């Protein structure tokens, strides 16, 4: 049996990571992308494991053995996780996504609302704190873009003050910014990033920063620079007299959009085949093997490969869906781990962990999928479509996406 080609269904973080790891080794990879991915929410951090039962996790690798057996990390194997985490970081670096952090020890990312959450990797340009008892600076100038509502500056400033920083909020605008605000709807982080590319536009921002930042040791700006790479950030820093760091905004987020673009760019450079707008519609499973994938574009002629990887995401990305009676997987109607009684999918209070967040496709230890109780030998699942984890409450979403993708790529390359 040949083992040279793989079709990955889904072009978000997990699909691209898996595709990159395979393409790097000369494997033939096609990614079918059905639409935008949840990477677009990302503020520029990856999380391996952020919390268990509501308590923050300081040392994720140490905490993984205490996770239940059904968690994807436990299926992959605790001893493999540290190695895969190292690979993930290298792979991000290869694409030009420069992040710092450590799988052994979490640092703190600052959320758009000024709240601290544990993180594994964070973009170098973003503000992060290693030790809350030992702040890197004292005086901060929080530069607020006038008329930009997707960064709640009041909350952000208060959150930073609660941590012990002296924060001065300084509102500013430039020609480019105020002309964008003339539209009632266009003032979003991603449109700002498009407007703030030229040297002149960046110079005008730097002029404001240099004039207004006063005695601050550090200047914080919203993450609205650099849609394709971090060149604009580097330029802006070179024009400013004080060190700059960025703070994530509400989505659509520039950091996420940029990471998607960089991963994709590198995948294409490696000769990968990325097809946008190719929503997978199904496929035939015979004798425990998937024989091909049909898409909206392919009609009835299936696309065929040796291996298939399902990376379609959870409900948000429509990899999973629900009707009045069931939770189901949307492409192949694979077996899912989910309660059959709709009253058990959710909880009454909005801030409680909702059960459906942990639902997903059922897999074995090798992340192979099942259909009507039978294992499908050449179909594996990765990322948010997997059951047994909880990105929202446990902070394990991006970690599961990257590490399950790398584990599956490794197994495919090894012919397992």
């Amino acid at each position: 049996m040949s083992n040279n080609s793989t079709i990955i269904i889904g072009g978000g973080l997990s699909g691209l990571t898996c595709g990159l790891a395979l393409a790097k080794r000369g494997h033939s990879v096609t990614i079918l992308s059905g639409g935008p991915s949840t990477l677009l929410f990302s503020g520029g951090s990856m999380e391996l494991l952020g919390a268990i039962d509501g308590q923050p996790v300081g040392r994720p690798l140490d905490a993984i053995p205490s996770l239940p057996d059904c968690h994807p990390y436990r299926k992959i194997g605790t001893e493999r996780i540290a190695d895969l985490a190292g690979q993930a970081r290298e792979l991000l670096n290869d694409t030009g996504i420069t992040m710092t952090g450590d799988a052994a020890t979490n640092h703190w990312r600052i959320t758009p609302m000024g709240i601290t959450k544990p993180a594994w990797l964070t973009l170098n340009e973003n503000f992060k704190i290693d030790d809350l008892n030992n702040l890197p600076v004292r005086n901060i100038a929080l530069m607020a873009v006038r008329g930009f509502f997707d960064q709640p500056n009041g909350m952000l400033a208060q959150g930073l003050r609660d941590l012990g920083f002296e924060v001065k909020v300084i509102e500013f605008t430039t020609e480019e910014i105020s002309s964008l605000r003339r539209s009632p709807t266009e003032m979003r982080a991603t449109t700002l990033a498009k407007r703030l590319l030229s040297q002149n536009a960046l110079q005008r921002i730097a002029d404001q920063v240099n004039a207004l930042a006063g005695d601050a040791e550090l200047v914080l700006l919203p993450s609205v620079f650099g849609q394709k790479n971090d060149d604009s950030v580097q330029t802006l820093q070179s024009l400013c007299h004080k060190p700059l760091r960025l703070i994530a905004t509400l989505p659509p987020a520039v950091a996420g959009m940029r990471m998607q673009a960089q991963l994709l760019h590198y995948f294409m450079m490696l000769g990968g085949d990325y097809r946008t707008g190719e929503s997978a519609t199904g496929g035939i499973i015979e004798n425990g093997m998937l024989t091909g994938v049909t898409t909206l574009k392919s009609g009835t002629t299936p696309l065929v490969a040796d291996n298939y990887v399902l990376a379609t995401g959870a409900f948000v990305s429509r990899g999973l869906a629900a009707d009045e009676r069931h939770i189901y997987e949307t492409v192949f109607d694979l077996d899912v781990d989910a309660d059959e009684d709709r009253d058990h999918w959710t909880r009454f209070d909005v801030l409680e962990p909702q059960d459906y967040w942990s639902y997903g496709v059922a897999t074995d230890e090798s992340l192979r999928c099942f259909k009507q109780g039978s294992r499908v030998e050449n179909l594996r699942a990765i990322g948010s479509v997997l059951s047994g984890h909880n990105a929202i409450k446990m902070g394990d979403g991006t970690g599961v996406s990257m590490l399950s993708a790398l584990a599956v790529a490794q197994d495919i390359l090894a012919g397992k």
Partner: protein
Amino acid sequence: MTTSDTYSTEYDVIIVGGGVTGAGTARDCAMRGLKVLLVERNDYSTGATGRNHGLMHSGARYAVTDGESAAECIAENRVMRVIAHHCIEQTDGLFITLPDDDLEYQQTFIQACQRAGIDAQAIDPAEALQLDPAVNPDIIGAVRVPDAAIDPFRLTVANLLDAQLHGAVTLNYHEVEGIIMQQNRVTGVKLFNKLDGTHVEVHGHVIVSAAGIWGHRLAQMAGVDIPMFPARGALLIFGPRINRMVINRCRKPSNGDILVPDGTVSVLGTTSDRIPLEAIDNMRVTREEVDTLLAEGKKIAPQLARTRIIRAYAGVRPLVASDDDPSGRSISRGIVCMDHAQRDGVEGLVTITGGKMITYRLMAQAATDAVCAKLGNTAPCTTADTPLPGSDTPADKQDNDTTRYSFAQRAAIGRHGSLAAKCDSQDDIDNALVCECEGVTVGEIKYALKDLHVFNLVNLRRRTRLGMGNCQGKLCSCRAASLLALYHHDVKRAQVDLANFLDERWKGMRPVAWGDTLREAQFTASIYQGLCGLDTAINQQQGQQEDKA
């Protein structure tokens, strides 16, 4: 807002209840020259006023079973089209007969409508389908009636604003804890101010209970018993809107047989279940209610089966058994106005209840007449002829050249009528949209904060429709919370407020959490909890409070 003499004034009348009936009574009393205080324990229009169909009945639905109510409805329907046109979408309604229904009922129905003075015209089923393509194509009969859609939040606010313009004082978040009595006379109320945690007493000559289903508790405080029969009704909101007209089923009123268009959405209702008095504060919609409504709704408009259910909600009708029928077997939906001096020997207390949302003005008139009789005031009622603020320009003379206005300006004019001019639009930031689904600008939020008794995001939603569209507050709630944080200079409060707002949205989504609604819920949780960590902030705040305790 309270001033130093808000509580010390001796009022002619204190109205308890900030639904549309209380607001209408405050307006009528104030217009007749009385010194008026209105108190509401929560926000305005949180009871049955904010939990009904938003249907401006023509009366046709009651024509066969309750001719008196039907006649009241059509009379008030005509009044509302003049005095409250900015709260109304003039859709007209259809009463359709399905193959399962008895077509002979149509004749009974039309005759009953005619007796009540309702213009009901049988039309060809094909014409009905052309008028509203959402109607089930299998219909065998159709009748056109002057039903319409009405926004009860807007209607309540317009009445409150007019009451204030005539000198009334209105306080939300003031709960009545007790009634002050001297011998057999009610002389005031004990209030708990939920905003600052203080307890105060306010005095007045007459107390009007316009507290809906909660009126029986108020009456009990004065030692009076009212035989209330709470009838709970559940409804489903579908989006985007599928129907142009109000679609009713032409049969005896039953479950899930009315579909009302409401701005950007369609509302299907209702169920009707007698519930015990102890259960009136439980607004959780049950699985059975959802399934019943869905099954029936698909019959009148099959497209509902393929339309997203945005949320579910329930309200309680304040029905009262007449005094000569304490069993409640023949409960009317008509207006009940009780002078407790005559009925129970308690002077200075009037209860106004029963009725329909659309007959609120008549109810207010009856209550005000009773108050005026006690006070010797002979001023006539003028509420039927005086337009409400926002409708002071007649509908046909309104500037219809909407091409000059932006989407948000049109939306604001729709919500506030001529008062939309009060929304700041001085610069690009005032004109910027906070809620893109419903077209709510920064300027409109500033106006609502200043003039419309807004303390939190849920209040803001009721005044402006922020967060009520298809996305149910996915991004706009954070933007609005951020504006409120700046306005109140209180970030912690804004975060709690934001969590409460998201919880209030979720309560309505949970009973119908599948399809795109479940997807939106995960999306919202990913942003507010996953990305932003709002849950962490709330847990920390609760932890700090427990530490202090």
